[in-house]
């Protein structure tokens, strides 16, 4: 199995895409970003469905795209498997024939292609559904068939476009674990596109955050989650991200307010605060926390078992409260409160 090296640019209407991605064999890269950032366009280029305007896409020595050299390998000649957003299983073919489709395209005799497709159905746990038409499958089953169809041709590169977006919340958990298992067994490079940070964290070996056609941050999921570099990523994972200047154990924010930190910092830094680290009091507290700010509840939304509150004030914060605490404090949008954060709970890192 080989690694993917793709550095290319695409100009298409309002989209100006310029990315540089590498994925080692057996690794999963998740492209995370808001709608319209160009994630799906990246996949279409990698699949060969869209020609890049410049750059180079290669699987080890096999150059798939290089406009400057006039090279473009069409989609049907690429060793690439793709799982589409709503799976796009051919409605007129049974599940086994859907999976055998790629092998039939490569002139594998019908009987052998079917036999291989059956094995894939068994691997994804759907051996009983060989003759079923896609219309009769549940979302989770269709996803597994689509994955088997993409893998049946033994591709060198696997692409998944929002593989979990079409599923309801309950199926999603199960399918996500299942998908993770199959991706773990796959020996080639994988690129997954997602707008859901939880999916990204669960599936990724590496995360690349795409915004407005550019990769704004990449790294391991925990690195990206702990130290976001843009407001979009921070908000995605629920962190409050503030830019400021380090002055020892104080960081002066652009608004003028200071944030106390445990690790001394100097120069341009980011300050990241987790929502669980923010404590809320009805009156001004006196005690150990060195960061105490007055605030106003701007909005409150249920978030899992907690209530996530956006706070407006000298330092905009996001805080997670238990539902009980939220009720006991008698909070509502507009309530005036005091927010505190312990200095050692503030993450500070260079900009």
């Amino acid at each position, binding site marked *: 199995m080989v690694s993917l090296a793709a550095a290319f640019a695409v100009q298409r209407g309002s989209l100006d895409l310029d990315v540089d991605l590498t994925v080692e064999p057996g690794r999963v890269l998740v492209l995370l970003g808001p709608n319209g950032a160009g994630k799906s366009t990246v996949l279409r280029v990698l699949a060969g469905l869209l020609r890049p305007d410049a750059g180079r896409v290669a699987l080890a020595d096999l150059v798939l795209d290089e406009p400057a050299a006039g090279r473009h390998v069409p989609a049907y000649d690429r060793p690439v498997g793709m799982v589409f957003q709503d799976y796009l299983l*051919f409605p007129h073919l049974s599940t086994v024939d859907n999976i055998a489709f790629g092998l039939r395209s490569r002139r594998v005799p019908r009987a052998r292609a079917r036999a291989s497709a059956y094995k894939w159905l068994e691997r994804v746990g759907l051996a009983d559904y060989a003759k079923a038409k896609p219309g009769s499958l549940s979302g989770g089953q269709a996803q597994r068939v689509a994955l088997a169809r993409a893998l049946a041709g033994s591709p060198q590169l696997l692409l998944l476009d929002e593989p979990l977006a079409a599923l309801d919340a309950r199926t999603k958990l199960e399918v996500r674990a299942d998908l993770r298992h199959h991706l773990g067994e796959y020996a080639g490079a994988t690129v997954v596109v997602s707008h859901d940070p939880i999916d990204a964290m669960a599936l990724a070996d590496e995360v690349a955050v795409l915004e407005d056609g550019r990769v704004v941050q990449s790294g391991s999921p925990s690195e990206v989650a702990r130290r976001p570099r843009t407001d979009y990523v921070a908000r995605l994972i629920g962190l409050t991200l503030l830019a400021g200047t380090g002055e020892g154990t104080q960081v002066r924010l652009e608004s003028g307010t200071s944030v106390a930190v445990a690790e001394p910092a100097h120069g341009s830094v980011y300050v990241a605060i987790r929502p669980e680290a923010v404590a809320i009091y009805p009156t001004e507290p006196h005690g150990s926390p060195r960061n105490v700010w007055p605030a106003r509840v701007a909005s409150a939304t249920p978030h899992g078992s907690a209530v996530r509150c956006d706070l407006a004030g000298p330092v905009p914060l996001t805080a997670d409260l238990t539902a009980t605490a939220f009720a006991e404090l008698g909070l509502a949008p507009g309530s005036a409160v005091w927010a505190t954060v312990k200095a050692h709970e503030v993450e500070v890192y260079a900009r």
Partner: protein
Amino acid sequence: MSDGDLIEEREPARSPAARSRWRRGTWQEPSARTPKASAQRRPGARIPLALLVPAAIGIAFLVLPMVGLLIRAPWSELLVRLAEPEVGQALRLSLITATLATLASMVLGIPIAWVLARSAIRGRSILRALVTVPLVLPPVVGGVALFLVLGRRGIVGAWLYDTFGFSLPFTTAAVVIAETFVAMPFLVISVEGALRAADARFEDAAATLGANGWSTFRRVTLPLVAPGIAAGAVLCWARALGEFGATITFAGNFPGTTQTMPLAVYLALQNDPEAAIVLSLVLLAVSLATLTLLRERWLSRT
């Protein structure tokens, strides 16, 4: 519809308040009944007289001629008439030529539809207009045009005659050509609509599975639009079966080789009206059978 409904129907015109009450009334009323009864009844209760009367006259206008055909049919000697060799000959010729014209339309028309629906070539809208001209062109004009191109002295016809010693006009092949010319646009339009409605991303999926353009078309696109092709083929076949003007102009009216059913009907009307009625009945029966074939598709569209 009861009298009470009619009174209720007129009342709302008087005051807005009454109108809203009336609306609420009719809207809520059906929920108390079975859905089927309400679906049949609600539209009926709403038709204004100014529309109902012309609609009724129009329906009578469309249906009465067919009823007349049934009433005047020589039922007692129908079977004898049908057994006449001329009838069988014309019917056989009609069925064969219409079927061949439909096949030719599919072979040529489906690719045209694909080009119109999927390709990005320039001047596509002009192409579409050109292809659909035969829909609005008087068939006689089409026949004359075909004659000018494919006749013995025509642009292509002269070459055909010089090279192969073969002249198209007044042959069964000419019938098929005339019918194809007139009927193919029906198929093209129907298939193009089906292609546009089909999700082109399935073709992307096929490409990532190693299928090239032709393979994708054959294994994915065609099966996806098969219902549209079937409907287009039936329409095309029905149009070819009824073709008169282009056929008589380009192919003439020779029993056994170019005299199709519509031509036979026209000829029979002049010297044997009863025979014309019998032939017309046969065509009517075939048309109704076609309509029945299409019925489900038409219903699903509304």
